[in-house]
């Protein structure tokens, strides 16, 4: 995961602007609500899918963060690409992403979705990183990442949604 260099300057939370008045921007409230009810598109491709299922199961319980697995892209805001993306399946990944309504976010879970992992060399059929197909917001590394690492990635995404952290820009060193 990319370490932060500096937080943004937008304060989060209601401001006391006068005696008895608290103001809070509507935008912030919407982002707060969105970040705490990310409905996840069940997009398990390979081994990372098992850890994603374990994260959804009772020991690591993603439901307490508001993350609920949904089967249809029309009902989800978060696409967790977990597993290796091959050229044969790449078109389907993009189509599923395009079927999601905005605002939508993508977590590249695992090394294969991040950069192709150990299939980087000699694998003619593997797309080296899902960010060649869809824009990714958070990269969670690991092969496979522990469910706690996935939860960490989701919490990072929640902070990005609320504006507490900047979204990584391709090519920058943020």
């Amino acid at each position: 995961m990319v370490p932060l260099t500096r937080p943004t300057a937008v304060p989060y939370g209601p401001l006391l602007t006068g005696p008895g008045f608290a103001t809070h921007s509507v935008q912030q409230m919407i982002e707060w609500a969105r970040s705490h009810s990310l409905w996840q598109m069940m997009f398990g491709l390979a081994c990372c899918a098992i850890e994603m299922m374990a994260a959804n199961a009772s020991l690591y319980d993603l439901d307490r963060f508001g993350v609920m697995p949904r089967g249809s892209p029309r009902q989800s805001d978060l696409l967790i690409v977990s597993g290796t993306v091959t050229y044969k399946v790449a078109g389907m990944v993009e189509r599923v992403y395009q079927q999601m309504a905005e605002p939508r976010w993508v977590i590249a879970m695992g090394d294969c979705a991040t950069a192709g992992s150990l299939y980087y060399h000699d694998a003619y059929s593997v797309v080296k990183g899902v960010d060649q197909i869809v824009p990714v917001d958070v990269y969670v590394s690991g092969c496979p990442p522990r469910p706690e690492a996935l939860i960490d990635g989701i919490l990072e995404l929640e902070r990005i949604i609320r504006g507490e952290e900047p979204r990584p820009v391709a090519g920058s060193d943020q």
Partner: protein
Amino acid sequence: MPVDHDNAPSAPERLVPEEGPDLPPEDIQDFLINVGPHHPGTHGVLRLVTRLDGEKVVGLDVRIGYMHRSLEKIAENRSYHQIIAFTDRTADYLAAMHNDWVYCLAAEQLLGIKVPERAEYLRVITGEINRMTSHLLSIGALGLDSGATTYFLWCFAAREKLVHLFEELCGARLTYVFHRLGGVGYDAHPGWVEKAHQAVHGVIEELPRFRTLFHDNYIWHLRSKDVSRLSRAEALRLGAQGPLLRSTGVKWDLRRDIPYSIYDRFEFDIPVGTTGDVYDRTEVRFEEIIESAKIVRQALADLPTGPVIAQRVPRLPAPPSGAEAYARLESPRGEIGCYLVSDGSIKPRRMKWRGASFHNLAMLSELAVGYTLSDLINIVGTLDPVMGDVDR
């Protein structure tokens, strides 16, 4: 009416009734839908081009290859030690121990390496615990596909107890890279044996509760009995293996019939079914969890001391040109195998991976035609394909 299970036709007896509106026949058409490649069922990327007549599946084309990660091409450019990191994740990641094991068996046969006793015991222990976790996940996912979400959560909770053992042993929860040429890579610390006993006991204690929730459930019986019956002759003809074959009544298990490693020292039973339907396949897997626990307990009790890896295994082994080896073993999905051919260099000429799910999935079109779409999902679940094993 008694059914001759040996020679029963593969056509289903529980057919979907021919009901429907009174439209002239030319207004009613079959239609093609895609089940997959992305599917909320948990079997990975599998595409079933299904021709449906209402709810009934009348034709099925199984399209695979969406998880093809070029295992065999990669293996041609890696040394014999390096391939172990690929076999456990590229093929059948749910039974990673078995994949590493079969590759190591083939490579050890090719190179003439003998494995020490403690390593053999550790291989058996981890292999059987892996079989338990794989079966728990398989029947849990089957429950999830059928709508029994609680059962899925229970199976995963039981599985977590065993996965913690692996974490203590080799640091990984799913893709272990535990085996090495000539043994295993990590030794069990003295407290691990006791923890393993407790974890396995904890899982076995819960199984009666699982049976009450799911396997004895009347709704599950309605959904699974007589669905996709498979006769013994058909199973043998089509090349079924693993729990699928055993559910039809064929008592064939490589651990007992072509014993590898030290399986001839343990006492365990081979559960078989009778009709080969979805219910029997699930029951066979459930009973195999209990049998695996028996093997684990026996092996933990007899675990000898000693080294866990052979001495003097070359860093870059180069078997003589033209040497070949094939090793097979019984993974949770059935019979897997690894064929290695050497050309005298430090990299193998060819590594052919024989996957169990590949052969089981090829039978799907015979197994599923005539049943409903919802049965199709259950049938795929009981074939238990892991797309890594199918596509490699």
